[in-house]
């Protein structure tokens, strides 16, 4: 744990302004500037490798050593124990720097798994894993859905069987994004068959490179293979690997779903109520194809821009409602997920309507040319992954209304 760093910030009760100034100086001295021309991440054109990820781990380690990893996380586990305001200040200062890019597993590790662990795992477990996560030594993915159980948690059949003081894991998981380069899977398994189906589930930490674990990438329709399927063949686990209480995995899963729906962030993205540039991808497309002055295309562009802004503002509102305890957190979080799932699919389709025939074809290697098609193929990810639109509607209908 980085006691020095922690001391530096909190033991002295330092002010937000001082923190910000210090972060600014540290960033300038330690990190590279981000290439402003670097394109945003385009799923289907951003394949990670185990080797490539090492450079990212090094940056994360620097952050940790500088005292800027886990800014709001408890000091007991290597975090800085500071406030959300500190996190925002750091985020603002760090905007133009090259931060670690762990791909999709990064969001899962820091945004979903670690936060779920902090809410439910034992102190010993946290002391073992959280510092390693903060140092960039452990990337985590979720081993959650199964080939035969997508939306239905109660249908989980991957099982961990007690054998002396060990647990023996067998079964299969799917849709674990980035498992092929990650270190651990946070795995939901059935541990008790004698209780109602939604009970008797337990979460385990599964080291991905241990014997009995096979990871097989699932080729996606965009040609990439970010999702994986895993097969567990008598994988040995111990009580130390249990996250939360045995047979109470359902409760843990509910917490995880809130984080997964992108809500309840510790450090809520301070989305300013300022619209971004007019749907830049769609404007570029319309200009490239000579449709920028076409009233029908302009309606589609503005529609996307309106929805982009509305979605961001909805996120602010829902985050505020959850923090204010205005309703069931998981249910409220479904609003954000459903908005992403519906507006995302619409937006991908609007691009094809703007691009019409011109967006259907491109020259080999022409990234701008293929982007609308690739986005179109990714257009339903948010409508399906992490709980379908239908599940979110159930959540809203049953938990909020």
């Amino acid at each position: 744990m980085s006691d020095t760093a922690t001391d530096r910030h909190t033991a002295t009760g330092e002010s937000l302004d001082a923190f910000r100034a210090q972060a600014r100086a540290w960033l300038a001295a330690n990190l590279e500037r981000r290439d402003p021309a670097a394109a945003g991440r385009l799923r289907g054109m951003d394949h990670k490798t185990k080797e490539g990820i090492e450079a990212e781990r090094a940056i994360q380690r620097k952050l940790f050593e500088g005292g800027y990893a886990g800014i709001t996380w408890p000091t007991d586990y290597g975090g800085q124990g500071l406030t959300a305001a500190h996190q925002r200040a750091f985020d603002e200062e760090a905007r133009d720097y090259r931060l670690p890019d762990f791909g999709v597993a990064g969001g899962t590790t820091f945004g979903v798994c670690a936060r779920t662990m902090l809410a439910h795992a034992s102190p010993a477990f946290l002391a073992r894993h959280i510092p390693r996560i903060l140092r960039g030594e452990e990337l985590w993915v979720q081993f959650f859905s199964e080939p035969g159980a997508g939306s239905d948690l109660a249908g989980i059949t991957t099982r961990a069987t007690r054998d002396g003081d060990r647990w023996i894991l067998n079964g299969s998981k799917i849709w674990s994004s980035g498992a092929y380069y990650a270190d651990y899977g946070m795995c939901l398994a059935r541990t008790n068959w004698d209780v109602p189906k939604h009970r008797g589930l337990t979460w385990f930490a599964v080291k991905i490179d241990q014997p009995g674990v096979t990871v097989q990438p699932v080729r996606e329709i965009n040609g990439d293979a970010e999702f994986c399927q895993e097969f567990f063949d008598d994988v040995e686990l111990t009580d130390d690997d249990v996250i939360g209480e045995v047979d109470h995995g359902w409760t843990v899963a509910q917490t995880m779903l809130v984080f997964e729906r992108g809500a309840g962030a510790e450090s809520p993205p301070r989305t300013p109520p300022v619209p971004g540039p007019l749907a830049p991808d769609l404007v570029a497309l319309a200009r490239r194809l000579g449709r920028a002055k076409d009233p029908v295309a302009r309606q589609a562009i503005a529609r996307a821009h309106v929805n982009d802004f509305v979605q961001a503002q909805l996120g602010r509102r829902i985050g505020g409602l959850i923090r204010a305890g205005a309703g069931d957190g998981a249910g409220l979080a479904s609003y954000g997920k459903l908005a992403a799932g519906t507006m995302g699919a619409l937006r991908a389709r609007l691009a094809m309507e703007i691009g019409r025939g011109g967006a259907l074809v491109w020259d080999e290697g022409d990234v701008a040319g293929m982007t609308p098609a690739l986005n179109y193929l990714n257009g339903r990810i948010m409508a399906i992954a992490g709980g379908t639109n239908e599940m979110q509607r159930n959540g809203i209908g049953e938990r909020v209304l």
Partner: protein
Amino acid sequence: MIGVVDLDLDLTEDQELFRQTTARFIEASCPLTEVRALMDTSTGLGDGYLRQAAELGWFAMLLPEEHGGGSISGEGVRDAAIVAEERGRGLQPGPFVPMNVVGFALGHQGSEEQKSKVLPALAAGEATATWVLAGPEGDWRPGSAVRAAERAGSFELSGTAGLVQDAHVADWLLVTAGSDAGLTQFLVPTSAPGVHVEPQRSLDLTRRFCRVRFERVEAGPADVVGEVGGADDAVERQLRLAVVLLVAESVGAMDADFQMTLEYAKARTAFGRPIGSFQAVKHQLADTSLALEASKAVAAAAIRAVQDDRPEAGEVASIAKAYVGDAGIDLAQNCWQVFGGIGYTWDHDQHLYLRRLTTDASLYGEPSWHRERICAIHDL
């Protein structure tokens, strides 16, 4: 359902109290039964309603203090939006939006004479004003409806405007006119020779709209509001204000319609279960409540942007209008479908919300007009 239904989550205590007072006033002075009774009257407005509302500050919030103005929190736009939301919820009649726009315009652009002549009376609800902007076909481009011809320092106003709310009870008209010099605004009394106010029927039964014809109406230099030919910026600010207040009214109406529908879905049974427990209805309600929550969120952003006079305020107002305009119709249509046949009956309030929200969608610019405007703001 989410308990908080306010437009934003950070009302001050004073503002929250103001909201409650407003809601109580509406419930006491003009509940839906009274709104229905007013539908058949010639003015569409209850005696003394505007004066009583004025006592609560409805028409003073955007006026300078020296002319009778002032708002609860000092944030006039937000306070007015609180009133607007409650008004929408209760489908209140009367020219709340246009009177506030006229007051705001005069407060910023009017001559001292215009201000002292009109503003105290507006603030007290003793005089009524409305805004003449759109053409009778629903063209909201400023200056498209009325034309001002300059003749030796005086002006002659000609043309036909439409969708002028409550002109039949207005004392004053703020006329946004095109002219050779550019956009120019005038304050003229409704009684001026050549002004013909023609009340029309409308889809909305809870507000009244008029066609106003200008037949060579004389206007002197003292009737000009602001600079001759230089009203572009002022009109833009008026439009933003009108848009966000109208959006706040819409969100209030949406919330009330949805709550009414939700209660029905829980109480009404079919096949031995509440209809809201059927997945088809449950999901439709979930989608509808998403549209409602999103509308509240974007309305709050727009109100704040206009309150703070941010550079992007015009764009955010248009975004809110484009989204809420469509979402309001979606919501009313979905609620109607949940009500089924009962929502097709005159005595049920559902159609009053449908009519109101459908009308709101086009007032001060229909969604497609605002979408085009957004593209233009971005120089596309």
